[in-house]
């Protein structure tokens, strides 16, 4: 019985992304956000700041809808075209790990807030849209939380997350540019990898 249940559960996890990916971008953002919030609100470990569990949640529920290579290219800027395929792969892996961790921390911090979905302005045939949401905080102005998505082979992928007007991706541009001008693309890879290792070591 137990194994049957876990098999069913496993199937659900495998099938869920496929189902959500066929949705319109705004519906997809809403479904993924609500899925994640439902888990966070029930999970005492995540609420008490268990980063490892929050990262697992972000990896399984959120990552499939993100285009990390595009995000990395945006953060790196012009130099991206000069990187070798191997460098691009390494950069994307390391930057993905950093972004997933940042997102997971945000999940923990804002666990009690309600998210409101704004009507999206989207025309048929659009392949690049911004879906606007708001995190409601009692006693304060809501925080704008926007997702930029692009259509890729029939499904929508997030390539930027913008919090209160701050792009979590392009906010790294100056830092990355400076590191690359000092130590090249390999220097940048090392910098992000070291940061990830340091965060991993300090993890609860």
């Amino acid at each position, binding site marked *: 019985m137990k194994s049957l249940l876990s098999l069913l559960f496993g199937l659900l996890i495998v099938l869920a992304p496929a189902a959500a990916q066929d949705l319109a971008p705004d519906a997809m953002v809403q479904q993924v956000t609500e899925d994640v919030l439902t888990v966070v609100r029930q999970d005492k470990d995540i609420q008490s700041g268990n980063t490892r569990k929050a990262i697992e949640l972000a990896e399984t529920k959120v990552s499939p809808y993100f285009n990390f290579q595009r995000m990395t290219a945006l953060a790196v800027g012009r130099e991206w075209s000069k990187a070798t395929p191997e460098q691009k792969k390494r950069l994307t892996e390391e930057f993905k790990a950093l972004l997933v961790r940042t997102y997971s921390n945000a999940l923990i911090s804002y666990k009690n807030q309600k998210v409101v979905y704004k009507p999206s302005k989207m025309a048929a045939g659009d392949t690049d849209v911004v879906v606007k949401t708001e995190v409601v905080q009692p006693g*304060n*102005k809501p925080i704008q939380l926007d997702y930029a998505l692009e259509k890729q082979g029939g499904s929508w992928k997030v390539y930027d997350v913008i919090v209160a*007007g701050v792009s979590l991706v392009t906010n790294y541009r100056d830092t990355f540019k400076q590191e690359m001008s000092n130590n090249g693309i390999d220097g940048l890879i090392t910098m992000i990898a070291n940061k990830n290792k340091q965060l991993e070591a300090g993890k609860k």
Partner: protein
Amino acid sequence: MKSYLSTRICSLACAAALIAASGCATTASNPKDPFEGFNRAMFAVNEGLDVVVKPVAQGYDNFAPLPVKVIVGNFFGNLWDAWTAVNNALQGKGGEAVSDVGRVLINSTLGIGGTFDIASEMGLTKHSEDFGQTLGKWGVGEGPFFFWPIIGPRTTRDTFGWMVDTYVDPVWHAWITDDMALRNIMVGTRYINLRATLLPADKVVDDAAFDRYTYIRDAYLQHRRNEVFDGELPHQVPDYEPSD
């Protein structure tokens, strides 16, 4: 009060002049941050002050029940809404200005002195404007970036905006009360409440940033541009074609 403010504004202006004069002595490498040396020093001062301020904010955040925090936020928010209305009017956004006046009237009366945000529940959206945004809307450029002690990051434009904001700020003004002790309590409470609302962002910035100063500066600049455009700034198109 007047003399306090003018002293403060004078010292700020003097500081700005001093920095401008010593511009060549700074470690300028970033065109939007020509006074990076000074700014990093002030950033360090603020991080030092935060060693005291943050635990107070954390204590407040942990021990004050949510309704108390909401009431505090609403009360100061209602005072600010009046200034938001003026700024929306100055920016030519009549509809928003009228809505903001409505918010203040409703929340000050039905909302018992602004402690309850009834207006939001009635569908009058809260806006947040300040004089720096108004200057931005009028086309005033940002100017060099500064990191000030206590007040934190501001562009040159927003530094002047902040001076005007502070000058009209009812919390600082004697016309609300002649009681200096009460005024100081209000200013202090608002500051701690503001710091407490920023607590969740601390951990995120700690983990996300390679260099806290750069991360906060760049985020502040993006955030203010977004505010000037009331969140309607078109999503930036990459300046190159991403390829695999």
